[in-house]
């Protein structure tokens, strides 16, 4: 298994396509950072509206590394699944279309270990992608914009998280995002085992994400009651929960707390169930599959 995992990683990181995602992310984050560097204060004033009419606000301090990273994650984590699908959708079907799958499957390794090694290799790729996002969006933003308190908008209003209480929330958010992206990878893997060309699984994964996201977001009672609880997209944005800080009865925020931890745990469990179900299905299908490509 370890041998296979090394081989799969070697193949993934030898493909030029793999680095496309890293380049796209870097370019995207750089554009946001540049925009906020030039017009960050205006943007923050626009976001906070008439807040300065009720209190003294130093907008320059609010546009800091943590805020920039939060803004980047809100925009970017919706699109990262496409980049994950680009690699994960290709792991089996790409080999089938290239004709190497039959060579691989005729070797003295079990089909289960082939699929699992491909999934674990994809996990390493997703992990590297998120580390890359973290480095560029968090570390570079902190270096450029400095460190200060983070202001977060909730439906109930705004809340300020002290600078010293922010970093661990990012670690947790990235860890959660990793699990969420692994669901996307698992969907792509499953579709990849069903197809003999790479484009189909990639497009289908993106299509599924778009449709599920739309259904999750629609404020239609029948969808919200009967469909939304079963969609993985309902749980994918659970990382935001780490930035909703708990508060006392009189409205004082509690440092180091999370407003609704059970909600995050529930989301994590749902995503893990999805991963187990999807990967098990992939293994089952691949073990039964006649390799004719």
């Amino acid at each position, binding site marked *: 298994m370890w041998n296979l995992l090394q081989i799969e990683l070697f*193949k993934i990181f030898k493909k030029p396509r793999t680095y496309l995602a890293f380049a796209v992310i870097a370019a995207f984050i750089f554009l946001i950072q540049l925009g906020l560097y030039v017009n960050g204060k205006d943007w923050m004033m626009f976001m906070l509206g008439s807040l300065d009419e009720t209190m003294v606000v130093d907008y320059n301090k609010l546009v800091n590394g943590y805020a920039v990273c939060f803004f980047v994650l809100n925009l970017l984590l919706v699109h990262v699944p496409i980049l994950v699908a680009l690699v994960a959708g290709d792991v089996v079907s790409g080999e089938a279309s290239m*004709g190497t799958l*039959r*060579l691989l499957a*005729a070797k*003295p*390794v079990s089909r289960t270990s082939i699929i699992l090694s491909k999934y674990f290799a994809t996990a390493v790729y997703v992990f590297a992608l998120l580390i890359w996002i973290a480095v560029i969006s968090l570390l570079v933003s902190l270096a450029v914009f400095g460190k200060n308190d983070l202001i977060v908008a909730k439906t109930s209003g705004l809340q300020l998280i002290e600078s010293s209480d922010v970093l661990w929330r990012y670690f947790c958010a990235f860890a959660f995002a990793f699990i969420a992206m692994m669901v996307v990878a698992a969907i792509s893997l499953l579709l990849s085992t069903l197809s003999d060309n790479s484009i189909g699984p990639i497009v289908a994964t993106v299509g599924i994400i778009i449709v599920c996201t739309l259904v999750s977001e629609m404020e239609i009672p029948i969808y919200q009651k009967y469909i939304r609880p079963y969609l993985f997209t309902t749980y994918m944005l659970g990382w935001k929960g780490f930035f909703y800080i708990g508060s006392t009865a009189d409205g004082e925020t509690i440092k180091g707390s999370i407003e609704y931890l059970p909600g995050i745990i529930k989301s994590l469990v749902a995503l893990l169930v999805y991963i187990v179900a999807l990967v098990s299905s992939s293994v089952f299908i691949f073990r039964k599959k006649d390799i004719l490509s």
Partner: protein
Amino acid sequence: MPAIIKVNNLSKKFKKINAVDGLSFTVQEGDVYGFLGQNGAGKSTTIRMLLTLVKPTAGDISIFGKNLFTHRGEILKDIGAIIEKPDLYKYLTAFENLALFAKISGIKAEKSFLMDHLKMVELDERAHDKVHTFSQGMKQRLGIAVALVHNPKLIILDEPTNGLDPQGIADMRTLILKLSRQMGKTILVSSHLLSEIELVANKMLIIHKGRKMIEGKVAELLDPSKSVVYIETLNDEKARQVIIESSWQRYLQPGAKGILLKMDKEQIPVLISYLSQLDIGILAVKPTHSLEDYFISLTTPNNYVESSAN
């Protein structure tokens, strides 16, 4: 010689199509076993079943004396294969491809060992070039290196000359003979071209529509003192029955379409006379001499008669 491959009553059905239908054959140690059939005859499906890529609908396969499905990993360690065209990772170099497959095969190969293998197939000078820059012949040679890197006892080559130029075909033939004679490998090689099998194999099996037509030693099938005769009568069913019930039965070729017999040339008029005496009208008698004729007559008897008549 011990049996290396033993296939018993193997079948594979894809929906309503019988790709392979009750196929049985045995490949013995040291054989270069030609597996012959037209395109779509079921050769590749059979080979894929031997490599566990396709699951049989029925039948047994044992390789090296062990059941393939219960000892899969153990058996596949000793098999090297090229399945149709040798598709490799195009974005990797020849060396990287070879190293990768050596590793999957459980070989801890030194650089020099891999380079020796590339030298064997005359690719050492292109070792660090990406495969997408290679010609079909070079890819085929690299495929051979990949198939041999773990020193397998059994080599399975599915249409190894497909897409090769005449020089490439000649090189492949030389390589097969070298692997068999100098390295003692057992080889199963499939082709739709009889001329290829004729030149390299010592035994052969002809398959048509998934069924075995004939199996035997190539030298015997090519024996110039024997003729293979295709006989067309007014009532083939009756003629076949008469032959089966007589001493001529031993000359009848099993599985063949129509009435196909292999016998001494001198016996042909005697058989014709025998059938005539039983009021079986003879429409055509065509002795065939080359293996090519034999192959065509086995797989397409009607076409054969028509072309003979013309």
